[in-house]
């Protein structure tokens, strides 16, 4: 403790109290544990979900409470940042307080003989009696120490006594400085990436997120636009093939912010490649960057794990959706199968009204490939692990005015099963239950036209003449239809077709809508979800990490070890007292110390050893 002058002693001691508090180990350990506990919250509760989900989960009262304490985005709340801030403050205090002392200690000459270096006061110590003179014993001791990586310093203590002080790993304290400095640099860089100016602007209210997700960019309120020269951001944007964007969107709370980009991103093409199991293997966006004048800046393929970097802005492949593929459909009416099929086309995401019905069709999605295990299709699965691609399919929801409807998954290409080809469609009347599959046999021209003709003929027959035996008229009608529309069919094919047609007719009894929509063509268009990030401080963070690892290594594995030897000249030899201590791993050090002592005994020609040898 240094003496204080009475002037300003109160404020002085208060500051000291604060510094002592901030630099105390108790606070540091408490903060580490507190931060750990606070971090748990955000893992238990799914973060940054739509607010409606939370409202549904917690009810109106708790929803408000949790929102106000920021549980929906814990790691960006002020109180969480405050804990981190305190930890950084505490680390800084420790570092500032300890660094000068540690640097001094590192630089200090080893030959200072203080009581701290008295070998008898050290954790390990032992006495050896040597027949050698003090001078040569001293040199021997120094040589042994040098051999083991210590740097011995000799010190003449007068009165026929010498001291050898040696130290190894003097830079161990550097480990402390490096680790703690790295943490501070790391946190500062992370704060920079977290875009503090924008957070402040939001706090003040000069930037307000837009909550309406269904308006075009031009109608987004100007308050939701972030500055063009924003130093750091991380947003996402969905770009359909052939289109481009000059902004990215940052989700904030219940809304979003718009971040203008220094270039225009055009998605030229998006491609998914698959494994033989149908699992996606790669997502590739072929993008082109333009400047405002339309000049091409860069062109590249962006893949998962392989982002594109341009002038500090990184573009990542994040997701993909259908970008509004054009679907060409052909509709057959079940209640009037004889009528001509109706052609219609629309894009995925659109809804269309069906002429002549009360139904509305909502085109939900399109998928180019459908890879399934072969066993799902073949009644007799051939080899294991065989997969087949069923080709394109699309899903739609058909709904009539009264609100009743169903969801359909329709395959474009006929699927062959046991020699007969079928038009296949999954039908479900409630969301979430599995599809039930309808199999309608396709004729020689690959569509269900023949089946519809047969259906129509049957209906006409049924209304015209009901006297004929049911079984025979079903078969006779079939023969007539085949003779008229598909005369090239073989007898076997006819038999198979007839069998399948009958079961399809039975299946259709439970069909929820009076029409079947098939897909005749498409113009596929993907949209890629891209993540656009500008985090200039990331490089600093990596360097901070490297320094942190180096610091931890030094701290744990290059411990500071001291040996201190005092030699006293005796009448016929030298008394050698060896002491040693380590900043870490006393157990390991004890082993090293024992080795050193064994070595010293042998080179110093220890008399006790000699006696033992003679006796033995």
């Amino acid at each position, binding site marked *: 403790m240094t003496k204080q002058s009475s002037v300003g002693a109160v404020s002085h001691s208060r500051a000291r109290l604060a510094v002592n508090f901030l630099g105390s180990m108790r606070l540091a350990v408490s903060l580490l544990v507190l931060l750990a506990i606070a971090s748990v919250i955000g893992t238990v509760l799914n973060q940054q979900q739509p607010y409606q989900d939370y409202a549904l989960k917690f009810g109106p009262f708790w929803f408000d409470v949790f929102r106000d304490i920021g549980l929906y985005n814990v790691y960006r709340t002020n109180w969480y940042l405050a804990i981190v801030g305190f930890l950084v403050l505490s680390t800084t205090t420790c570092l500032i307080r300890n660094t000068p002392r540690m640097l001094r200690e590192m630089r200090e000459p080893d030959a200072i003989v203080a009581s701290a270096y008295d070998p008898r006061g050290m954790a390990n110590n032992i006495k050896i009696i040597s027949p050698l003179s003090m001078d040569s014993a001293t040199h021997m001791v120094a040589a042994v120490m040098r051999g083991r990586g210590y740097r011995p310093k000799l010190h003449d203590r007068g009165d026929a006594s010498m001291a050898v002080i040696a130290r190894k790993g003097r830079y161990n304290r550097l480990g402390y400085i490096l680790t703690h400095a790295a943490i501070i640099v790391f946190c500062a860089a992370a704060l920079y990436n977290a875009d503090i100016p924008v957070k402040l602007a939001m706090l003040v209210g000069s930037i307000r997120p837009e909550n309406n997700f269904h308006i075009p960019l031009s109608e987004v309120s100007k308050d939701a636009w972030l500055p063009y020269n924003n130093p750091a951001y991380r947003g996402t944007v969905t770009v359909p093939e052939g289109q481009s964007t000059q902004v990215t969107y940052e989700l904030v709370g219940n809304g979003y912010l718009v971040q203008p980009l220094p270039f225009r991103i055009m998605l030229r093409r998006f491609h998914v490649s698959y494994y033989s199991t149908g699992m996606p*293997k790669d997502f590739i966006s072929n993008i082109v960057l333009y400047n405002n004048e339309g000049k091409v800046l860069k062109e590249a393929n962006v893949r998962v794990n392989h982002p594109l970097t341009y002038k500090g802005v990184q573009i990542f492949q994040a997701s993909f959706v259908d970008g509004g593929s054009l679907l060409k459909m052909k509709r057959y009416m079940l209640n009037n199968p004889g009528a001509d099929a109706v052609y219609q086309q629309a894009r995925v995401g659109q809804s269309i009204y069906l002429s002549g019905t009360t139904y509305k069709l909502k085109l939900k999605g399109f998928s180019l490939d459908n890879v399934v295990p072969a066993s799902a299709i073949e009644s007799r699965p051939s080899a294991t692990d065989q997969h087949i691609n069923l080709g394109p399919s699309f899903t739609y929801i058909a709904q009539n005015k009264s609100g009743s409807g169903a969801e359909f998954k329709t395959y474009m290409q006929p699927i062959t099963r046991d020699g007969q080809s079928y038009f296949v469609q999954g039908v479900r009347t409630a969301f979430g239950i599995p599809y039930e599959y309808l199999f309608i046999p396709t004729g020689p021209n690959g569509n269900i036209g023949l089946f519809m003709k047969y259906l129509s003929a049957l209906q006409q027959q049924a209304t015209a003449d009901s006297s004929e035996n049911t079984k025979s008229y079903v078969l006779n009608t079939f023969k007539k239809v085949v003779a008229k529309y598909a005369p090239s069919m073989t007898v076997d094919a006819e038999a198979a077709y007839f069998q399948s047609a009958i079961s399809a007719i039975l299946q259709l009894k439970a069909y929820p809508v009076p029409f079947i929509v098939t897909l005749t063509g498409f113009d596929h268009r993907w949209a890629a979800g891209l993540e656009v990030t500008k985090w200039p401080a990331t490089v600093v963070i990596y360097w901070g990490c490297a320094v942190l690892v180096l610091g931890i290594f030094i701290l744990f594995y290059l411990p500071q070890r001291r040996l201190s030897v005092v030699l006293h000249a005796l009448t016929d030899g030298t008394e050698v007292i060896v002491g040693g201590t380590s900043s870490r791993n006393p157990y390991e050090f004890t082993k090293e110390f024992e080795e050193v002592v064994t070595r010293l005994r042998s080179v110093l020609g220890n008399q006790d050893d000699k006696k033992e040898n003679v006796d033995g």
Partner: protein
Amino acid sequence: MASSQADELLTLTKIEAEGRWINRLSKLDLLWFAGLTVTVGVLVDVFNSQFWFWQYVVLATWYVTLVAVGIHWRAFQVAFLTVLSAALLGVWLYSIGQTPANDIILRYVLQGYAGVMWMIGFLLAATSAYVIYLFTLSEKFGRLATGLTWAGVLMGFIGLGVRWRETYIGHPDWGHVPVTNLWEVLVVFCAATSLFYLYYESRFKSKALGAFVMPLVAAAAAFLVWLTFVQHMDRIAPIIPALQSFWMKLHVPMMFVAYANFTIASLIGLAYILGDRSRRSGGGGILARALPSGEVMDNMMSKAIALGFLLFTIATILGAVWAAKAWGGFWSWDPKETWALIVWLNYAGYLHARTSKGWRGKQMAWWSFMSLWVVTFCFLGVNLFLSGLHSYGKL
């Protein structure tokens, strides 16, 4: 006079030289060093055109680590060479067109699946042997337990090595290091924990701790059996695009080596607590007789945690580097990431309390033991109960 001075100087120089670590190495160590150096030289020569910067960094790190670990712990040299040659034998058998269906060695020993089954068997047997050793203190069982553990470790790593090759067979684009699903990482966990346990056992000469560490490994092995026979997770499957990264083969195994060290430290903590109780209650108990002294266990604990902490830090950073490539940011507050941070903070707290405050003994043993739950939740719980980006290990 001058000559005697020269003589003395020569003696001193000799004494100094003899002490140097390089002169204390045995011939075997030098051979190990030379063999690795030649191997690395050949690798660089062959792959020179394909390697990029980080591959050189990784190769250099492997080289330095293997040299250092082999010299520090001689048994490792034998183990490494055994695993390498057996795995290469398996790969060679595949390369000459043999398959598990027509080759008896592949079917029953060397194919990845068989190796792992052997590992499970050996480790379960080793656990029983360690428990018997604890109660009887019979040297015979002690040696048996250690031998069985070694056998399990070797078979586990051989199985993983051969499985790595197997992922390419029949479907070259599936190929991956076998650390991509829960089954594969559990194999890594069992083998790594046992290997590190063997290291601490040989270093601190204490077999009794096996009865504390190995039961957890046995539990993991039993879980592995369930995953194999009920969930069929041993099947080789292709990996999703996010996992197709250079960083995966560094990040994942290193994480599990860190987990292995934390687990060992936790279970030594448990041994410490129980041993302490046994000593206090009169000192005549089995634990009081069998377990090493509290000081030694305390030291083992802190060594394991220090090594685990270093590796965990590096592995987390590697994960961040990977995330920056795959997810667009080095940190996304994904539940797994956050739990990794929690584990890190927890052990940072432990190390601060130990080194700066000098806490020792029972309270630190409790801290270490309770950390087992934090680590286990980070490893398993997050995947089982929470959703997020890291959902590869789902059941």
